[in-house]
């Protein structure tokens, strides 16, 4: 973005966080502006509508104290994030301010305080890979630095059009991110500098890759009911709608810890601050079993909780996905967890209401669907220009009003995701966690276990449910014994496989290998013919079987205890 001469304006009206400004020269839609308040604060804002000589700005802060006539400066730059080494392990707000460094100044989030997101003093061990004379395009690698275990590529700025010829490269060594590491010239002779850091406007997808591919390879989450029944692919999208109390956040936390992704971006969008704090405090100490390093080393947290200003909540979702795209460009698999997209939609609704736009369903703006779709479309598996693959998997939590999935945000989301994990209040009330409903949920991706086994298990669940409904009408005594056993089987399957203890270190992490092994055994049980004298005996038998199976789930993979419990299980099976 070029440095235009300073453009100014003055405030003409205030309505909530929407400020009307008369501008003196020109403005750009979505450019960043600062409102100068009498108490000295400069409030960051974004142009969201222009009418005649007036621009409407959404202010990313509380608007108390703004007066008519207050000065406004326009920056000429779209709302952007800084991309470079040092993003990992950080905690940002929706505008990429590092929260821990803000905390050094005040306990409270004082408005008008903005801090550069990256550490520009820290020196990185830089190794150039491009040579003078090389022809490069936007997003091609010119060098790299180690960031934790990752090979952090320094790339030609994504926005550079056409072909560039490298004219100069820096020698290997330790440099800070603002150092020019290479220079390049384009066909018309313009020379530009490449630094370790570049800015990118958040609302524009980074699209300098060769092609988008079909996501097929499963992304293992270690949550049994997801991986086996409702799998997610690397580069896929899925959503977890559910009423409050159904365990959305606990599930998201489990995903953020156990998923087999290189980078995890946790976006807390308009949700409780307390939940983020758990991540903030636990990730630096929890070990990532895949790498042996700490979980925080592969994590970025974007935190714009519910009490933080609503406009930056709206932008935080774009900030998160832009950071995800940046790491995808390095050939990594990124998982973005957005909790909750409904809060984002509500932020849009608040803004739309203040703009006095004609409301759509439930007063959400008419363009809600297209915005939801274009957000999820930023996920995907891509082949990069250098032939490598990178992916972004997006999981959006949805918080439907009243737990009713018919509402606009859930419906708009269902149209564009590849897997739907319906969280059910009934299951949560019965403490059947994770509360993913086995009959309502669906997935278009490929399971980690054999398809035929999944289909059989699903049929048992379906039949069991029908029999249960029937039993409510005709009673237990009127149900044939064979049906009753099917019902017990489906309850058994639910108890020992669908339900999983997130707070137990063994049970919470079920690898693909273990799932395959255990599910095979489970299938044998489901397929086995049982005959019992009466229903009480059947119930008693399955209760015992369940007990052993649960103990088996709690024993570490391939430990002596695991083998022992399996023997007990086989013995119990031989009984019947």
């Amino acid at each position, binding site marked *: 973005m070029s440095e235009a001469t300073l453009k100014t304006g003055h405030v003409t009206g205030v309505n909530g966080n929407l400020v009307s400004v008369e501008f003196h020269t020109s403005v750009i839609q979505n450019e960043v502006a600062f409102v100068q308040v009498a108490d000295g604060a400069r409030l960051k804002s974004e142009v969201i509508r222009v009418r005649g000589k007036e621009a409407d700005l959404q202010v990313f802060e509380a608007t108390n104290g*703004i007066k008519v006539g207050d000065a406004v400066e326009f920056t000429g730059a779209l709302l952007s994030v800084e991309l470079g080494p040092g993003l990992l392990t950080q905690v940002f707000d929706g505008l990429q301010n590092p929260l821990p460094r803000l905390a050094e100044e005040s306990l409270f989030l004082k408005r008008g305080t903005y801090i550069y997101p990256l550490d520009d003093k820290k020196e990185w061990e830089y190794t150039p890979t491009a040579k003078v004379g090389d022809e490069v395009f936007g997003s091609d690698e010119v060098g790299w630095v180690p960031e934790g275990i990752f090979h952090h590529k320094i790339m030609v700025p994504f926005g550079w059009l056409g072909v560039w010829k490298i004219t100069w490269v820096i020698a290997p060594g330790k440099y800070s991110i603002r150092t020019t590491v290479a220079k390049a010239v384009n066909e018309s002779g313009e020379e530009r500098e490449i630094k370790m850091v570049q800015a990118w406007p958040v609302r524009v997808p980074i699209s300098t890759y060769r092609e988008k591919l079909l996501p097929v390879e499963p992304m293992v989450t270690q949550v049994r009911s997801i991986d086996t029944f409702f799998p997610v692919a690397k580069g896929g999208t899925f959503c977890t709608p559910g009423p*409050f109390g159904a365990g959305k956040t606990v599930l998201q936390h489990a995903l953020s810890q156990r998923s087999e992704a290189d980078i995890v971006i946790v976006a807390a969008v308009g949700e409780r*601050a307390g939940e983020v*704090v758990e991540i903030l405090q636990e990730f630096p100490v929890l070990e990532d079993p895949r790498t042996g390093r700490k979980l925080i080393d592969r994590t970025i947290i974007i935190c714009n909780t519910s009490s933080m200003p609503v406009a930056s909540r709206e932008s935080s979702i774009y900030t998160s996905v832009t950071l995800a795209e940046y790491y995808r460009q390095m050939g990594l698999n990124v998982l973005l967890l957005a909790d909750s997209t409904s809060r984002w939609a509500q932020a849009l609704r*608040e803004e739309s209401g203040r703009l006095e736009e004609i409301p759509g369903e439930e007063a959400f703006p008419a363009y809600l669907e297209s915005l939801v779709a274009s957000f999820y479309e930023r996920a995907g598996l891509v082949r990069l220009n250098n032939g490598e693959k990178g992916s972004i998997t997006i999981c959006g939590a949805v918080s439907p009003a009243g737990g009713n999935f018919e509402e606009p945000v859930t419906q708009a989301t269902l149209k564009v995701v590849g897997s739907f994990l319906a969280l059910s209040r009934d299951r949560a*009330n019965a403490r059947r966690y994770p509360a993913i409903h086995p009959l309502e949920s669906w997935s278009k991706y490929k399971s980690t276990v054999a398809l035929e086994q999944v289909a059989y298990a699903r049929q048992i669940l379906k039949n069991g449910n029908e029999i249960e409904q029937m039993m409510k009408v005709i009673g237990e005594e009127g149900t044939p014994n064979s049906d009753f056993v099917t019902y017990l089987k489906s309850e058994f399957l639910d108890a020992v496989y669908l339900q999983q203890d997130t707070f137990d270190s063994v049970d919470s992490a079920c690898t693909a290998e273990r799932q395959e092994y255990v599910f095979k055994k489970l299938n044998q049980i489901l397929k086995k013919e049982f005959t019992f004298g009466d229903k009480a005996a059947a119930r008693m038998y399955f209760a015992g079987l369940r007990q052993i199976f649960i103990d088996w789930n709690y024993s570490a993979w391939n430990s002596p205890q695991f083998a022992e419990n399996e023997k007990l299980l086989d013995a119990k099976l031989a009984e019947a």
Partner: protein
Amino acid sequence: MRKIYHRIIQISGNVITLEADNVANGELAEVRSGDLSSLAQVIRLNGSRVSLQVFAGARGISTDSEVRFLGRQMQVAATTDLLGRIFTGNGAPRDGGPALTDNMVEIGGPSVNPACRIIPRKMIRTGIPMIDIFNTLVESQKLPIFSIPGEPYNQLLARIAMQAEVDVIVLGGMGLKYDDYLSFKNALDEQGALARAVMFVHTAADPTVECTLVPDMALATAEYFAVQEHKRVLCLLTDMTNFADSLKEIAITMEQIPSNRGYPGDLYSQLASRYEKAVQFKGENGGSITILAVTTMPGDDVTHPVPDNTGYITEGQFYLSGGHIEPFGSLSRLKQNVNKDTREDHRTLMDTMIRLFAQYRDTLEKQAMGFRMSAWDEKLLKYGRLFEEGMMSLKVNIPLEAALDRGWKILAECFEPAETGVKTDLIKKFWPTAKQDDAE
């Protein structure tokens, strides 16, 4: 030096509009009309037109009322003199005591930086098993009590306030019936707790706008005690549905587009900015704010916008129905932080008892439909009865450990160990072996 304005150009609901300059968004003004005088707050600026919300209501305001801008935002006195005092929603004394004017701080301040928060790990014991075992209350938690009108929610609130170990109690009453206000006051007085309490009370007879100020006044006060005085503060708010209804009234007056059943589109943000004031600060003597807020559910409908939005904001909820805390739907999201350190059987017992109680409820349904009860059903029926008497009744007042022991006893009286689905090692340790304490 401040100008006095005399020409009001619009009066609509409780909002007046006049032409004025050099006015800041959110600024307070004093409106005088004859003998009437009220505070008002700027809620919208449009060119030289300024819209103000009049706290005492616009009734009786004349077009030539005097309006004087005060050059400051709404404030509350941050001083320990607050203790033992009772105020109205806009901070005027309700108890006949002197007005407090020292060390004024703005209300509705910014939220705490999430990076400054810590994971709350201190349990608040209440002596109520449905809370202590099943939905443990944790210091700095924000929890609503969802209730149908008519349930004893204010009594429950008062009981928790008395029994919980906290330093300061801040009560924010919104649309409170006058008798409820008096019974709160008497309850605190009887237990000698009034001296460590501050009350901001808006009664049902007071102007609507004042109702919307109560949570901010109460929470700013709580924040002062927690941050400056390092106190453990329990903030009680009742009833948040009245607060939301006041917001609705004002939003409609301002011709905002309603989103759901007439409530403004920012209801979630409005509620969240209040509830998120609940916090635990770092350090040995770091203070904390715990929020318990009554939310009455119109028509016992949890999907009504107020309880619904609240549920997404708070860290769980207590459902009050039929005079007891309902095991289903009630939830404390922070219980995991504390119930692993109480006793090793706490979590398992909690899950098992609730799961079995769910089956008991199913059996009750079957029984109501006239089905023959199987042996298993009979066991469940017995269990359900014992659970309701020994755990759910609000009359029960025993410490957590005694309640856990009672839980195992109830299980042993009704079931074989394998029927409970409890891990074998816990069964070995806690299952009461002698069954002689059965009746007969």
